[in-house]
C-alpha cells in the first residue's frame, strides 16, 4: 500500500504553523549520549520508553490509511550502543516494508557512530536519510555534545553521498538495482545555542550542498529545555527571526543563484534582522540597479527584491509578446511594494514614486520587525543597522 509524491504533501499544520507530513517519532528516548542541549540526555531524569518494531509498524500503517500522514520519520536515542540502535531501527523498517508492504515515504536518521554496513542497510529501506550536525563548529560540539565529533557526523554523511552517487550509476546499468535513499539526504543545525555567526552557518550550509549534495539543510531556533552554564539561560526566547533569515538565505542559495560570500562576510557576519537578505544585498549593491524589466537577464531578474522564481519566469515568457509596464507586472505577481525601487519599465520608474528616506526604509523593512517583541531580539544581537541616510543615499543617488 502507498505511494510517495514528488512534491511534498503537508497533511496538517501544527499550532506553531509548521507542516506535519510524517509521523515523527523516536524509536526510544533512552540515550547513552549526554548532549547538554537535549532533553533525552543520559544525565536527565525523565521517564524512558521504547516502541517495539511491531507497535511502530501498526501505528504507521493505521495513520497512513486514514491519510493522517505521508509516511514515517524515524529517529532514536542511542540505546546500548550505536550499532544496536541501528539494528533495532532496521528491524522496524524491514517489518514495515516487507511484511506490511508499506510503499509510503520513510525518513530515517542515521545514528552517528554506527557501522557503514548498517547505514547502507538503513539506506536501502528508507527514502531519505539525515544526520543532524546540530552545532556548526568543532569547538561547539566539543563543549556541548562531547560524545559526538565532527568526524563521527561527516563520515556517515560522506558515505551516504557516495552511496547515492554509486546507486545512480547502478540504476542506469541494472534496471532492477534497489534504490538507495532516493529522496536524498538532509541535515539540521541548531541556531542560537552557541555564539557561532550566521556567516559560519551559511558557509557551512553552502559547503554541504556543494560537497555532499544534500537536498536540504534545516535550521532550528534553539529552544532552551535544559539548564546549563554553557547554554543560554532557560528563559531565552528562541531566535525565530534569525532562523527565518537563514531560511531566506538558504532559498537564495538554492533557487536564486546567490553565493554565501555575496550575502555575508567577515565584516558583516550576521544577517540584518530588519530587512531580508535579498533586500539587504540589493541595498549594498545599488550600482547594479535599477534594472530594465524588458531587457534584464533571468539571473538579474531573480536578484530584484519583490521578484521571485515564478514571477521571473512569467516576466521572461510575457515579455516575448511585447513590452511590459507596471500594471502588467502586478498581474504577473511581482511585489511592487519592494520591487518599485529597483526597476524601470520602458526606461521609466514607477509613476508617483517618491523616494524619501522614511517611506523607503519603512516599506523595505519586514512588517514583523515592527512588533515591539522583536526589537528586544535586536538589541541582543547588536546588528549593524542601515541608517536612513544610507538608504536615501543609495536610492536617490542611482534612480
Amino acid at each position: 500500500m502507498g505511494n510517495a509524491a514528488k512534491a511534498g504533501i503537508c497533511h496538517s499544520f501544527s499550532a506553531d504553523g509548521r507542516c506535519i507530513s510524517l509521523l515523527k517519532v523516536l524509536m526510544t528516548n533512552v540515550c547513552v549520549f549526554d548532549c547538554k542541549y537535549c532533553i533525552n540526555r543520559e544525565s536527565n531524569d525523565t521517564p524512558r520508553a521504547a516502541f517495539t518494531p511491531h507497535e511502530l509498524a501498526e501505528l504507521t500503517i493505521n495513520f497512513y490509511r486514514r491519510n493522517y500522514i505521508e509516511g514515517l520519520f524515524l529517529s532514536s536515542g542511542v540505546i546500548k550502543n550505536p550499532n544496536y540502535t541501528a539494528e533495532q531501527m532496521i528491524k522496524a523498517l524491514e517489518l514495515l516494508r516487507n511484511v506490511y508492504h508499506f510503499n509510503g515515504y520513510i525518513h530515517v536518521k542515521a545514528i552517528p557512530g554506527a557501522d557503514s554496513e548498517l547505514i547502507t542497510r538503513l539506506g536501502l529501506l528508507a527514502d531519505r536519510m539525515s544526520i543532524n550536525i546540530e552545532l556548526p563548529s568543532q569547538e561547539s560540539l566539543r563543549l556541548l555534545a562531547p560524545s559526538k565529533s565532527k568526524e563521527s557526523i561527516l563520515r556517515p554523511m560522506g558515505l551516504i553521498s557516495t552511496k547515492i552517487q554509486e546507486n545512480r550509476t547502478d540504476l542506469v546499468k541494472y534496471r532492477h538495482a534497489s534504490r538507495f535513499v532516493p529522496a536524498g539526504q538532509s541535515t539540521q543545525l541548531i541556531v542560537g545555542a552557541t555564539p557561532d555567526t550566521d556567516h559560519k552557518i551559511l558557509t557551512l550550509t553552502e559547503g554541504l550542498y556543494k560537497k555532499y549534495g544534500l537536498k536540504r539543510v534545516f535550521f532550528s531556533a534553539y529552544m532552551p529545555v535544559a539548564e546549563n552554564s554553557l547554554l543560554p539561560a532557560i528563559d531565552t526566547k528562541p531566535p525565530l527571526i534569525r532562523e527565518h533569515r537563514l531560511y531566506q538565505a538558504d532559498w537564495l542559495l538554492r533557487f536564486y543563484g546567490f553565493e554565501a560570500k555575496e550575502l555575508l562576510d567577515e565584516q558583516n557576519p550576521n544577517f540584518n534582522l530588519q530587512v531580508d537578505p535579498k533586500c539587504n544585498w540589493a541595498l549594498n549593491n545599488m550600482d547594479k540597479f535599477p534594472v530594465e524589466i524588458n531587457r534584464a537577464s533571468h539571473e538579474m531578474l531573480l536578484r530584484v527584491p519583490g521578484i521571485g522564481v515564478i514571477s521571473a519566469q512569467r516576466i521572461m515568457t510575457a515579455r516575448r509578446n511585447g513590452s511590459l509596464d507596471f500594471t502588467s507586472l502586478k498581474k504577473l505577481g511581482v511585489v511592487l511594494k519592494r520591487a518599485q525601487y529597483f526597476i524601470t519599465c520602458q526606461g521609466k520608474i514607477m509613476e508617483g514614486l517618491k523616494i524619501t528616506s522614511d517611506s523607503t526604509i519603512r516599506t523595505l523593512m519586514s512588517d514583523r520587525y515592527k512588533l515591539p517583541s522583536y526589537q528586544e531580539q535586536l538589541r541582543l544581537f547588536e546588528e549593524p543597522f542601515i541608517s536612513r541616510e544610507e538608504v536615501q543615499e543609495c536610492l536617490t543617488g542611482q534612480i
Partner: protein
Amino acid sequence: MLDGTDLVYAYDGTFEGLMCCVFESYECKEIPCLIRPPSDQQTIFDTSKWIETDSQKADRVYNSIPVRISSEAQELVKLGFLTCEENKELLIFRFLRSGFKIGGKVMTMLTDEVVCSLQKAVRHLTSESHKFKGFIRFSVFGEALVAVIEPKNYVLPLLSAHFCDRYNGEKFMIYDKTHSVALIYQSNRAELIDIEGLTLPNVDSTEAKYRQLWKQFYNTIAIEGRTNPRCRMTLMPKRYWNQMTEFDNKSDLFQIQVQVAETKQAIANDIDKTTDKTTRYQIQGD
C-alpha cells in the same frame, strides 16, 4: 459580425455543451455577452438562446484545440471548466476565440485579461486539490475508507489518480458535499457518482482509538514557545478544519469531561468571589 451586446447563450451545464456554444458562435458569426448554465433562474422575459448539445460538434471544437492552439491550452480549458470561477464559461469562450485567432502564442500572453484570469482560476483549483491531497481524513468503516470534503472547486477528478495509486487494491469513497458527488474506488476501478446526502454509521472502537492517538500526536508535536496561529491559518485556512480529525471535538469524551470540570471550577470561583464581596461590604458597612 454581430457583436451582440445583449446576446445570452444558455447551455446544459456540461463541458460538451460549452464546446457547442463555441461552435455556435463561429457558425452564426456572433459573440454572446454571457453564457449561463441551466441552474440560473429563468424569467418570462428570458431572451437567451438555447444551445443544444451535440457531441459531434463538441468533439470538433475540442479536438481542434491541440491542433490550432496547443495541448497545454486544451489542458487549461479542461481544468478551467472545473473551477468555481463565476464567469468560467465566458472566460473559456473568450480564451478559445483568441486562441483560434492567434494560435499557440496565446499561452504566453500572461498579461492579457482573459488569459490571466483563466490561469488564476486554474491555479486556485490546482492548489486547492493539492491541499486536499493532505487534508482529507479517511475513517475506516469495515473494509472501506470514507472521507467527506467541502471544496470550492470541483476537485475530485484531480484527486482520483493520487488516491487510487495510494490505496491501490482497497475500497474507498470521497464524498464532495459542495457538489453532491462521490468518487468511489473499488476492484481497481474509480468512478464519479452523484449522491444526495450521506449519513455515516457510528465509528467502532479501533477507529475511535486511532482518532484519539492522532489528536494526541497533533497536540504534542506543536512547540509551545513557537505558537503562531496566523501562520497556521495562512497555510491551512479554517474552512478545511470542519472535516479534519484533529479539530473534531464533538466525539471527544475526554475533552467534554475536561470542559465540565473547568466550568465547575469557574462556578466555584465565582461563588468564592461573590462571598468575598459580601464580606467586604459587610466590613465596609460596619
